[in-house]
């Protein structure tokens, strides 16, 4: 699909400035997101291409504002919902719970 992920050759996005001595992870939660790739790969049986397709389906504005591992998280959610491990309602309820200060 020719969505916002296909940024190659697009004007106006500014220079690419690689971070000096970039750490593997910028936030602690990113370590858990990385680990979830192996877990969801095994549980759902999806392919790396299907993993990428869920990232393509991120709403365009969210895609541009989201970080690398946020994209991964969005993909895991898509796969876990598709394969019936969680429902959209369960995910939304959990997000609401966390936003209201719950654990």
């Amino acid at each position: 699909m020719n969505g916002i992920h296909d940024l190659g050759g697009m004007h106006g996005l500014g220079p690419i400035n690689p971070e000096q001595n970039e750490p593997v992870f910028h936030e602690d939660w990113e370590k858990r997101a990385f680990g979830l790739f192996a877990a969801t790969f095994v549980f759902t049986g999806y392919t790396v291409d299907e993993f990428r397709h869920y990232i393509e389906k991120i709403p365009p504005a969210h895609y541009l504002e989201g970080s690398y591992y946020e994209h991964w998280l969005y993909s895991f959610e898509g796969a876990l919902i598709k394969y019936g491990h969680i429902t959209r309602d369960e995910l939304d309820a959990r997000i609401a719970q966390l936003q209201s200060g719950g654990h």
Partner: protein
Amino acid sequence: MLLTPEIVPGLVATGASARVAHHVAPRFRVGDRVRVRNHNPDTHCRLPGYLRGKLGTVEQDYGVFAFPDTHAHNLGEKPQHVYSVRFTARELWGPSSPDRDTLRVDVWDDYMDLD
């Protein structure tokens, strides 16, 4: 399938590589002039949009990989060769581009035809 500790290192090292062991004849050889198809599905594909319709030269054959368009949608591996294809900046971005600049892109067999 359960996630066990011995699965993890291989998965992390390869990034769940889509390379497959099938023997499939390549459709192109190094040096072939190829035209990228105007391929624009609303499903998954790994052809950068800026390559559609462009003319390039095959530089290297990487071997056989699963085809993203089918593999992403549970439609099988459709194993085929992936190549490094060289495009001139002028072919991609027009006559204002530097005339010595080139770009190499990994392109699947099914995304192109002999020119």
